[in-house]
């Protein structure tokens, strides 16, 4: 067996043929490719990040008016705020809100183009300019304020926990040692780590992935905003939502930071004030958020 191995590997042959003191010099040659890569990566990456195109400083509001449509990032999977219904149409509170804004700024409530965002990429889609605004159950908090701008809040939700109907979990204290699913990129993920430090937290990229995991029995609870949970409960009656709300989550529209978006933000905030004052916002809330007391 040893002879077999020796024959296979020809080690003696290698060292007999080459001057043994110089054979190790061949090793760096094999690593040259390797080290070359590292050097090149750094060079390429630093080079790429230092080349930034000067963004056109044209005012976003005028761009929108010129284009004639508002591009809005909304959720496609969060009932009741943005979801695709059985008839393949996009519906929801956020969708109607954006249409209302379009009606009041551009004059036509169909002058909107909706792009799907998820909790993970809604901030990116703003900072990269893919969308003009984001209406996707976006909670206003100080960490996000460093990166994007918010409108005034248009809805106040709270973080809650959803469990199967027959579950023994009564509050967040029971979650220690259990499996909780969250959605990556949402505020719920950080909060649940503080509220239940001994729970195993699994993160998915979309709400439906997370909810499928809960539904399949892979997790004991799901935590996110209560409005989204209520939306799931409409279609899935054998789950329930726990009564406690652990945080206040004010939803706001998201805008990209910058001087060119200021006038657009002011226009949208003005519309929000208008529709709050004349009751349209309340109507929207009653339409989409039933069984829920607005706080």
């Amino acid at each position: 067996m040893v002879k077999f191995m020796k024959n296979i590997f020809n080690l003696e042959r290698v060292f007999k043929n080459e001057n043994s003191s110089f054979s190790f010099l061949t090793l760096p040659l094999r690593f040259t490719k390797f080290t070359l890569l590292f050097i090149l990566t750094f060079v390429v990456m630093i080079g790429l990040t230092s080349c930034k195109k000067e963004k056109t400083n044209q005012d976003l509001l005028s761009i929108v008016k010129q284009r004639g449509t508002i591009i809005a990032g909304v959720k496609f999977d969060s009932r009741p705020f943005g979801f695709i219904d059985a008839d393949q149409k996009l519906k929801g509170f956020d969708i109607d809100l954006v249409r209302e804004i379009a009606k009041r700024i551009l004059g036509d409530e169909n002058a909107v183009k909706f792009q799907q965002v998820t909790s993970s990429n809604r901030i990116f889609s703003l900072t990269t300019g893919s969308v003009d605004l984001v209406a996707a159950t976006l909670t206003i908090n100080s960490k996000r304020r460093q990166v994007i701008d918010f409108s005034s809040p248009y809805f106040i939700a709270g973080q809650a926990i959803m469990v199967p109907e027959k579950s023994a979990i009564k509050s967040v204290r029971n979650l220690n040692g259990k499996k909780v699913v969250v959605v990556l990129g949402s505020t719920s993920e950080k909060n649940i780590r503080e509220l239940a430090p001994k729970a195993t937290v699994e993160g998915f990229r979309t709400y439906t992935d997370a909810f499928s995991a809960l539904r399949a029995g892979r997790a004991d609870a799901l935590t996110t905003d209560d409005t989204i949970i209520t939306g799931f409960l409409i279609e899935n009656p054998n789950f329930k939502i726990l009564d406690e709300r652990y945080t206040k989550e004010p939803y706001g529209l998201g805008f990209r930071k910058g001087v060119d978006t200021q006038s657009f933000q002011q226009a949208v905030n003005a519309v929000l004030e208008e529709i709050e004052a004349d009751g349209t916002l309340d109507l929207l809330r009653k339409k989409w958020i039933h069984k829920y007391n607005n706080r």
Partner: protein
Amino acid sequence: MFWSDIFYNFDFLMKGLLITLELASVSIIGSLIIGVILGVFRYSRLFPLNIIATAFIELIRSIPLILFIVFVHFGLLPAILGSPASFFQSSCIALTIFTSAYVAEIIRGGLKSIEMGNIDAAKSLGLNYFQRLAYIILPLAITRMMPALVSQFISLIKDTSLASTIGLIELTRSGEIIYERTYHELEILLFIAFIYFIICYSLSFLSRNLESKSCYPIECRELTPIN
């Protein structure tokens, strides 16, 4: 078994399939162009060209495609263009660049596999550079590269499923949208797997036929199993 989901949503799935095929074909063409250039650089004896091509190819080939797609979509394209990158654009560019590295390696392998004897014989027959290229080198090289190229493109069609993770509504994602609503994952996933299987298997079948028609007798002896 809830196969009715597939019947009701068949047009939606087929739309997704169309996007998949579009993405695959654009990426194939793009990666062929870039891959040939890179492959020739890699094979050339000019040191700067060689080393740039080598470094680039090794860089691309050592990172997972999903990392590259997400990076291109969220970081690279917006930084370079300074403006939004649509799902299709960024997955297209990511797939093209990724596959071109592999195509370059295949082309280099093909060019390298031509024995010097053939080229010497061509030279001794008096053919000039372009005649050699057109009559001797390219036919030999292309017939040797073809199976590997087709296999790479089959792999590309399968990799378009990764574009679903950034949100492009191609075949996988359209199936996801359906089972997100109806929760009948098993049937829809099996159907999508079946569609991918049909596409990829027929392509590999075609490639095997191509291979058997174009190779010289000495190269395609019947590969009988060793009993």
